[in-house]
């Protein structure tokens, strides 16, 4: 029996990894195309049909380029932490339940995910601080300060969801949305969660860490080309995690008529991701102090209000 379950585990690990790569690659292409459309352009068209191979060319080229580690950098931290960051996000996706009993189904999955997710800013801080560049250092500081602004509302808005479902198990949360998804039941909570998630995903208007016009490339300034490929992979995996969380917690996850559950989940994840991309294409960047004020004066009260409303309307 041990071999049987072990075999299944390996199949699951490979299946989810393929899923991650599939989403990352497709989303990378979709993002470039949709931003190009928003800007009256075509985006990549020549490399492969509809430019589908463009990102492959980019990634292979980046990996084949010379890797530079600056003299001032802390070599060990600088060359391992980006990989750790990637490992963290991939591991977090393994913690999520998928339909057809794919993935691990642990009883406190929600807690585990949000605890581990708060390590990401620290890892980014380490990379930025280790590269020995002042722009990266500013970006690293911002990354930690920013997390103060959005972590608390994020967790409070998730708490309302857990309160309603009466469980920390994500599969239970999805199943309790069988009749009505939570986006309808608690719209305030969804808005808070979505905005806090944007900040977590480092997407505009909260892309303070990687602010091209101020900090050139933020914590990636001195990162060599192969590590930039890793950073892109991290970015898209984080995006996958974020859009999966949005669709699992608020959009009803894999529940839906006619189509198989996995397809529904992916469709919802892609919709959430494309909305985030459209926001990226249109808005300007927020300032750090304004973000703090916004987080504490708007998001936090709204999240608390959401919990109170949920408690009064549904739980009692």
């Amino acid at each position, binding site marked *: 029996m041990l071999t049987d379950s072990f075999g299944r585990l390996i199949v699951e690990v490979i299946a989810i990894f393929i899923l991650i790569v599939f989403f990352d690659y497709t989303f990378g292409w979709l993002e*470039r195309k949709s931003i*190009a459309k928003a*800007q*009256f*352009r*075509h*985006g*990549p*068209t*020549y*490399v492969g049909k509809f*430019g589908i*191979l*463009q990102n*492959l*060319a*980019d*990634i*292979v*080229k*980046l990996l*084949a*380029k*010379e*890797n*530079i580690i600056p003299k001032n950098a802390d070599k060990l931290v600088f060359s391992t932490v980006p990989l750790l960051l990637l490992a963290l996000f991939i591991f977090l996706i393994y913690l999520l339940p998928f339909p057809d009993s794919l993935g691990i189904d642990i009883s406190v999955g929600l807690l585990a995910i949000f605890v581990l997710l708060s390590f990401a800013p620290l890892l980014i801080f380490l990379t930025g601080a280790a590269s020995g560049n002042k722009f990266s250092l500013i970006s690293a500081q911002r990354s930690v300060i920013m997390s103060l602004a959005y972590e608390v509302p994020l967790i409070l808005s998730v708490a309302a969801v857990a309160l309603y479902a009466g469980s920390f198990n994500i599969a239970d949360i999805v199943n309790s949305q069988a009749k009505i998804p939570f986006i309808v039941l608690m719209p305030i909570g969804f808005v808070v969660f979505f905005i806090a998630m944007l900040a977590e995903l480092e997407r505009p208007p909260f892309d303070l860490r990687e602010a*091209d016009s101020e900090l*050139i*490339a933020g914590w*990636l*300034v*001195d*990162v*060599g*080309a192969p590590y*930039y490929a890793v950073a892109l992979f991290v970015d898209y995996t984080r995006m996958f995690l974020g859009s999966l969380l949005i669709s699992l917690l608020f959009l009803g996850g894999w529940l839906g008529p006619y189509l198989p559950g996995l397809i529904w989940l992916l469709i919802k994840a892609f919709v959430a991701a494309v909305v985030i991309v459209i926001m990226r294409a249109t808005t300007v960047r927020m300032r750090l102090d304004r973000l703090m004020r916004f987080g504490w004066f708007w998001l936090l009260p709204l999240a608390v209000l959401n919990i109170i409303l949920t408690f009064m309307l549904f739980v009692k």
Partner: protein
Amino acid sequence: MNDERFENAKREMEQLVVDSLKNYKAPVGAFFTNLKEATRAIASGTIRWSRKNSLWPMQFGLACCAMELLDFGSSRIDAERKGYLLFRGTPRQCDVMIVAGWVTKAVAPEVKRLYEQMAKPRYVIAYGECAVSGGPWWESYNIIKGIDQIIPVDVYVVGCPPKPENLFEALMKLQEKVGGKVED
């Protein structure tokens, strides 16, 4: 007999034996060497293909020609169609440096430094008359007459300023060079 000459001959003999041993392939080993070479060929072909199709220019404008460089990236020409557009501000992650504008004596060391900060393989396009030869500022006391005095240049684009279409053509020429169609 001269000892020295004898020593030399002996050393040459030894070298010959070592060389022939190096080139010797055992019948079983030959299969693996061929396999290794084949994989290496496929890998290098893939890498060359990817390099050819993803030339990222650096976000780096000096003077007038930078205006046309902006136009090159914007919606009329849309350089992203062929994968030329992912302007990165940092030299570490870029492939092509487009020197658009005149290079003064003050800025020359910076240009050189930026070139040295770029990761290999790296390419340079001299865009516009000023970068090619000094152009209209030939007689000025503070201008370098052509950036090829400080860094190696792959493609020259002439004009004052050249149209963005010319830059597109230059990048296609560079693609040919990267893809191995044109000798250096």
